[in-house]
């Protein structure tokens, strides 16, 4: 495995704006609430974006944000209150703990880490539901997290875009 900074990480990024984080999380919530035909094939966009911000901005986005988002998802989906809140808190914790490690890898290797993270989140949800007496819906529930992990490079590129843009292009600069 190729260790070292991928080219993308070498560019100096601008500080992130709170608006970017809020907008991305809102869009993720919207994507989650879209009327999908087959729920099992749809990745959990909120978990993906939350993991992204926990990895890239562990001091701004953390367990509190995850917990609140989880509550919103619980209510929006009409499931047991606290199911996603617990799963997302754990996701945020693991993502923050691993954030220094994950960023050393190239995007596709990062995606492997994220696959494990999302599978873990799904596993927590499943455990909670099975403990509450639901039937196991089949191994199809691992498909969503895997697709989500495959979207990680794309999500990374898109969400880092606002930080890559030059703040002020100085035409008259000497160098």
């Amino acid at each position, binding site marked *: 495995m190729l260790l070292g900074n991928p080219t993308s990480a070498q560019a100096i990024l601008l500080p992130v704006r709170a608006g970017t984080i809020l907008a991305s999380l*809102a869009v993720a*919530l*919207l994507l*989650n*609430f*879209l*009327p*999908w035909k087959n*729920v*099992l094939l*749809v990745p959990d966009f909120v978990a993906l974006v939350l993991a992204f911000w926990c990895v890239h901005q562990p*001091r701004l986005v*953390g*367990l*509190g944000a*995850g*917990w609140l988002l*989880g*509550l*919103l998802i619980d*209510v*929006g*989906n*009409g*499931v*047991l*209150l*606290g*199911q996603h*809140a*617990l799963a997302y*808190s*754990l996701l945020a*914790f693991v993502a*923050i*703990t691993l954030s220094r490690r994950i960023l050393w890898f190239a995007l596709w290797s990062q995606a492997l880490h994220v696959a494990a993270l999302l599978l873990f989140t799904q596993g927590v949800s*499943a455990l*909670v*539901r099975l403990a*509450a007496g*639901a*039937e196991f*819906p*089949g191994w*199809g*529930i691992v498909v969503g997290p895997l697709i989500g992990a495959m979207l990680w490079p794309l999500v990374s590129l898109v969400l880092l875009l606002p930080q890559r843009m030059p703040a002020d292009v100085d035409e008259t600069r000497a160098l």
Partner: protein
Amino acid sequence: MEHSPPPFFNRGPAPLVRLAFFASLSLALLVLDARFRYTEGLRSVLALAVYPLQSLATLPAALAERVSGYFVSQAQLREENVELRAKLLGASQAAQRFEAAQAETGQLRRLIGAADRLPLRSTPAEILYNGRDPYSRKVIIDKGSQNGVGAGSPVVDENGVVGQVTRVHALSSEVTLLTDKGQAISVQVVRNGLRAIAFGAGSSGMLELRFMATNAEIQNGDKLVTSGIDGTYPPGLPVATVARIERDAAYAFARIDCRPAAGVESGGYVLVLGSGSGRTAYPEEAGTEGEKRLGKIRRKDPDAAR
């Protein structure tokens, strides 16, 4: 205070502490919700916050439907028109007969002094989307408590019973489908009036009749309608058709699978019926009555002894 770090290094409590806090908070909520159902207030407040996003999320599909609606061919429309006209004719005939029968029933009921059955109040609603919970079978409809939808109301479509409203928000409500594993409905076989209870079979999209004796008089193709004795569903609504019967002498009960009559897993529009219309109170059970009397007598006894 001398040894505390300067405020610009202060990062709040350690992640593990935060995790313990939020995890215990979530677990407390889970227990409160799953065991005691104490969280409905919090849920309805959060639902109001989520509603704009949810309604925004249904826009793309609605827009796509509207756009594709423009490109429906004329032939298709004509075909549909003819079909609908034939259906209307049949329905109006049935309605006429129903009216006559209802008037007759009303007279008879008045004769025997029974309470008139109240006409059912119904609210048309649109299915916004399927519930995104793979562990249960629910749909979300666009009518809530502001439109007079109450928890427990039966939900039907043009072919039969779809399910039951299980949670009501201000502007939307959740309908648990008949095929959900935790959903039960009391039914009656049209052919011979045999009563049974149909349970959802979960992911197969079928219903099953449990606790029917191996020799129960039921056969493939039997139509099941609501019996109305549960007080929730009005009697006579189509529920399902018996699709498969397995009678095995080794077991006390037969295994009976039924196919739901309504488009439980598909379809866009439903009717929410008013719930619990004109239900009489349950009579007091003879056993408890007797015990109460016994208790009274026992209580009286010491007095008599004094």
